């Protein structure tokens, strides 16, 4: 295994191709759950968890059911990947919710509300599809999933910090609330664009 490839994947997913700010995936929770630091952190942790799990399971499904060369059926079913991935992610989140509820009630209380929300999060589906497009192997897929989650959490927490400060700052009346948040989001995306100059 090549550690430098993994390192490049991690840096790439967190900074250069950040899911929110350069791929524009998962924008709904980015705006919706970034009002408070606590909920942003909770959501971020849940996303990291689900993305890692989803990358694992969708890679397995793709490799053993859909991809012609490695499938047990020997037929090219790659056109089914979107629907199969959505299905498996939904099931996975349900399953994870049950397991956490039973084994770690405290964690369930902390993540509780956010877990079901993630089921329909496009960033989770996005990371699964990108893993396939980039031809990542099993380990690389898992690492990419986790790193994408970390990138999402990073941006969410940064945004929450800025928005908590915005509450106390003097903002023109017409800009208060959502408008200034969108402007901040744009500025953050521009800042993250600077990372795209990094080449390995």
């Amino acid at each position, binding site marked *: 295994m090549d550690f430098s490839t993994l390192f490049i994947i991690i840096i790439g997913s967190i900074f250069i191709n950040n899911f929110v700010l350069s791929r524009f995936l998962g924008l709904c929770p980015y705006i919706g759950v970034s009002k408070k630091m606590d909920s942003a952190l909770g959501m971020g942790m849940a996303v990291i968890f689900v993305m890692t799990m989803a990358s694992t399971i969708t890679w397995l499904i793709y490799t053993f059911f859909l991809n012609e060369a490695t499938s047990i*059926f020997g*037929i090219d079913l790659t056109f*089914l990947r979107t629907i*199969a991935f959505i299905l498996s992610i939904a099931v996975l989140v349900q*399953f994870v919710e049950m*397991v956490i509820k039973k084994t770690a009630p405290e964690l369930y209380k902390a993540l509780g509300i956010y877990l079901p929300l993630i089921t329909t999060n496009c960033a989770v589906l996005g990371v699964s599809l990108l893993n396939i497009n980039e031809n990542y192997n099993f380990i690389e897929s898992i690492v990419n999933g986790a790193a994408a989650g970390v990138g999402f959490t990073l941006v969410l927490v940064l945004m929450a910090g800025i928005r908590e400060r915005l509450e106390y700052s003097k903002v023109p009346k017409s800009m208060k609330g959502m408008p200034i948040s969108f402007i901040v989001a744009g500025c953050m995306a521009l800042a993250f664009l600077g990372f795209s100059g990094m080449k390995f």
Partner: protein
Amino acid sequence: MLLVSIIVLSVLGILFGIALSFASKVFHVEIDPKIEQIEEVLPGANCGACAYAGCAGYAEAIVLSGAEPTLCAPGGDAVAAEIAKIMGTKAGKKERNIAVIHCQSGGINNTNIKFENKGIATCKAAVLLSNGQNACTYGCLGYNDCYRVCPFDAISIDENNMRIIDEEKCTGCGKCVEACPRDLIELVPISKKVHIQCMSHEKGKDAKTNCGNKTACIGCGLCAKKCPVEAITIENNLATINYEKCVSCGLCATVCPTKAIEDRIQFRPQPIIIDEKCIGCTICAKKCPVNAIDGKVKEVHKIDEEKCIQCGICITVCPKKAIEAKA
């Protein structure tokens, strides 16, 4: 190809379905069904009057940590009884509290103002500005914070910008009590009908000149002297009623020189003893706050109508229902 894709997806779906149903059995968490039942009974206003985090929190507290079933203010006795039924216990009757505003000023034409306030139109903001725009620093500011915070629509504003609390709608949740920066609102049992409508601690003359309604308590103490049950105390130039002692007889309201005391009972009927029913138990005579009932054991009692203040206590305490109100 078509067939295979259908089969693959179906197989995936069935596998996932089996896995999930299996997992739901394995990872099943026992939740007391009582919690859900109680949650359904509760009003769902999440007002927080019970001091728990919302209705769900209260339901959990009842079942898991044995909280009292009578804490829900909006639900009142009906909900308390339902909860008690679910829990298999009996609910003690709890008298409903309602909010009472202890001030008669704060309207458009009954407020003396020191200056015109053009700042933010809320009570909380107004008190921060030179301690409010009205001359009385104890009185109602008139920006209706209580009206806005009421979750049950129980406070209305009349044409004079005075707040009127609807005794039927008020649930005694206490939101307005917290909202009032002058602490003018108090939760009082609904059976108590006589209220001192002033909170001014100013000396008599100042209190009266500051009050735009001219109905300030001047701390003269007449009400305290007249009270048959010693429920009124004067402290810092202000009379306050101890509602635990108060019998709502309304005598204080009749003697108050500044009309600072409101008596919400319009007419008190004269009680009369029905001689045939009276067994001479002397309970009414013992409970009468003004000793208006003359009664020896096993003799028919008599009410001295001159002494009687029509408080109605004797009617409620008589075990034989031998005392009635004269129409």
